[in-house]
């Protein structure tokens, strides 16, 4: 008896939805086991990381605030991943986007208002897209692998950040601390629910997935992305240009990352310091996969991963495990979703091993 992988006639729609859920559940299960083995209360830890943030209403605003950038960046990355374009530099595009938004804010001299804010946001999107244009050019003109080029630019972006907030953009009233001056109150996004940190950017993060869903499902562009990623020859047969697809995928990825950065600045953080890069650009990759590269999936997965961030902080207090543990869980979810991909395309069957037929060679001598 052995396990045999049998290709399905058509990819299982059920599995497409079930596998992310399965991945999360498996991660939780293994988490309990691992923590118990490490001498920590496994059930409590997993509960706090995965469940408690849903239940504790005072934590919802934290989840929402963390989910927003994750969702927005993941939306952009999903498009690229669908088309086999790998933008690993979202973190850098996020930072550059925020810096551009801050720059516009400074240029406005502390004045605010809707127009200024919109300009700041646009600057953020353009900055992120521009930062992603470099790997796009390198890929389409010179066939340079966009994974490496976009990643290298992330490190460059971090240095740009260090230079600006430690130098020309340093807050003169900030006690020599490397950070930009805080934005003026009317340069900030409005808070939607008074008394909370829920800002307009969160609403944007809730709405955009539906917009992207519509675009991906209904537009020719969405169609193009899907075809290019699924069957490149058919894409060419259908008259789609692969270079153009690469450009758009990178620019959208960068634009979304830049948007997330700008919204984070104007909605939550008010200023940029060296701690601004919080790894959202990388976590968003996990969000994108966990959401099966689908915009609504990005929404749900983004919330899920934000929960693990917030839960991680809760668990730090309740069972004394470090922040970094959240990262382990996130990686596990990614592993599981990648592995369970196979269930979408193949069915697992138990089969009897066939009896080996043994014809014998009877050579001349």
């Amino acid at each position: 008896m052995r396990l045999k992988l049998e290709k399905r006639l058509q990819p299982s729609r059920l599995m497409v939805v079930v596998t992310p859920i399965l991945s999360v559940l498996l991660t939780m299960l293994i988490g309990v086991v691992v923590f118990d083995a490490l001498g920590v209360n496994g059930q409590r830890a997993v509960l706090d990381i995965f469940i408690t943030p849903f239940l504790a209403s005072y934590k919802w605003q934290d989840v929402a605030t963390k989910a927003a950038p994750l969702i927005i960046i993941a939306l952009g990355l999903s498009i690229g991943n669908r088309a086999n374009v790998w933008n690993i530099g979202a973190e850098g595009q996020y930072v550059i986007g925020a810096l551009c938004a801050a720059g516009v804010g400074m240029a406005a001299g502390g004045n605010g208002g809707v127009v200024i804010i919109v300009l700041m946001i646009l600057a953020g999107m353009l900055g992120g897209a521009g930062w992603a244009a470099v790997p796009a050019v390198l890929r389409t003109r010179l066939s340079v692998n966009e994974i490496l080029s976009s990643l290298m630019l992330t490190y460059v972006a971090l240095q740009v950040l260090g230079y600006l907030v430690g130098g020309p953009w340093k807050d003169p009233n900030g006690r020599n601390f490397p950070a930009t001056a805080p934005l003026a109150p009317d340069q900030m996004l409005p808070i939607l629910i008074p008394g909370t940190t829920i800002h307009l950017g969160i609403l944007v993060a809730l709405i955009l997935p539906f917009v992207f869903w519509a675009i991906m499902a209904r537009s020719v562009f969405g169609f193009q992305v899907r075809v290019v990623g699924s069957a490149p020859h058919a894409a060419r047969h259908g008259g789609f240009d692969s270079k153009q697809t690469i450009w758009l995928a990178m620019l959208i990825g960068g634009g979304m990352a830049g948007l997330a950065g700008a919204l984070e600045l104007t909605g939550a953080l008010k200023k940029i310091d060296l701690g601004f890069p919080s790894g959202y650009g990388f976590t968003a990759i996990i969000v994108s996969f966990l959401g099966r590269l689908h915009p609504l999936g990005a929404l749900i997965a983004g919330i899920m991963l934000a929960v693990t961030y917030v839960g991680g902080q809760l668990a730090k207090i309740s069972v004394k495990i470090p922040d970094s543990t959240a990262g382990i869980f996130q990686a596990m979810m990614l592993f599981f979703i990648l592995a369970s991909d196979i269930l979408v395309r193949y069915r697992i069957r138990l089969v009897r091993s066939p009896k080996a037929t043994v014809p014998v060679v009877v050579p001349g001598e």
Partner: protein
Amino acid sequence: MTDTPARLALRGLTKRFPGVLANDNVSFEVKPGEIHALLGENGAGKSTLVKMIYGIMQPDAGEIYWNGQRVTVTNPKAARKLGIGMVFQHFSLFEALTVFENIALGLDAKVAQRDLEASIREVMNRYGLKLDPQRVVSDLSVGERQRIEIVRALLLNPTLLIMDEPTSVLTPQEVEQLFVVLRQLAREGCSILYISHKLHEIKALCETATILRGGRLVDTCDPRVETSRSMAEKMIGGNLKTIQKPVGRTFGVEKFVVNRLSMPGVGAFGISLKDITFNVKAGEIFGIAGVAGNGQNALLLALSGEEPVDDAAAISIDGAPIGDLNARRRRLKGLSSVPEERNGHAAVPDFSLSDNSVLTGRDRLRLAVSGLIRPTAAKKYTDEVISNFAVKATGNDAVAGSLSGGNLQKYIMGREILQKPTVLVVSQPTWGVDAGAAAAIHQAIVDLAATGSAIVVISQDLDELLSLCDTLAVINGGQLSRSMKVSEADIHEIGLLMGGIHGETEAGAAQHAA
């Protein structure tokens, strides 16, 4: 009889696949030191037969005798042990590695490097296979690469060497060099089984020719004595459907004109197209015959627009040059195409039929407007295709990859035909398709022509072309023969053209790869 037994004797070899009898009771012999041709069109059963000799497959019935003894060849390793070597048509070489490394990898046993190098040089010198063992394969010409495969086979000291379509991508000079090697091998007592469809080569090289058609052995003859005509006739056979002279079919103006279309080959094995010229009138069905691997794929890509050419005037519809337009723009000009590969090229296997309709129909049928897809329109069109062409599918949302070959092909043909193209170019319209679906597709093509479209059918099935088309040309080595009316066509001439013998004084295929 006191003469030595045949090196290889096949008696009643039979092999069945679902729906097809690939080899039907085939018997013949190869003498020691004989150069023996195995001749036939695609689908005649040559490669199946040879796979059984080399141990890749087992026969369902019949016996194989090796030097008079009955043997069962379990796998290629066993075949090599017997002394059977094979040089395949498609090489398995490692591009980035050197000649020496490629040969070393292909050996069954571990041989010390120094000994191996000496053996290789010895083989190369003995047979005049000039190759520098340190050169990297990617730098080599196709002829040189083949020599690697030959050296690999010769190192095992074979007494039967099987060559599978060895000259399909060689220059005439390289063909001559190959013949020198083969003749020397034969002189030394090695038998050669030479698979080919190229009549002039077989006449030049071989002493015996076994001709297969439709899985059966037609004849074993001496090509040195036999005429090309008679061999071609046997290869194609008298099993043809009677050609119906088209009744009351009138042709209109010239719709589709291809004028000196040339395109360089892509990749090491790519066939380049040279000066392809033909034209198709409204209502006319134009067929392009040829054995596989003579440029049909390249031609389709050039005509469909997936590989635009620089010379815009090389291809025109209703007088308007379209040669430099991509596939989408050509569709807007009224040209539809159906490539040979169903899954992955003509259709996206993971997409629904409805989405696949959007793939090619979005502009002409307004299935997408202002950048947005209209799913209802797409579904409606797909339903129309499904019902008109009797496609067995669960609905317009069925995933393309789940359809059977015949049904998917019906859908694809229907998708294009119902777009009412001015020009339809289709490659292998009924390959791998059951008889019922094939008939439906043929009828659909004839009906489309009746509405005034110009149709080009590229096919390896000569029967299909002769029953379907009004005019015919043969592609060989990337070049197209003159066009001839099917009703006046000389079957023998077609066979000769397919076999690479041109009526014109142009030298045979001079397509040197890349």
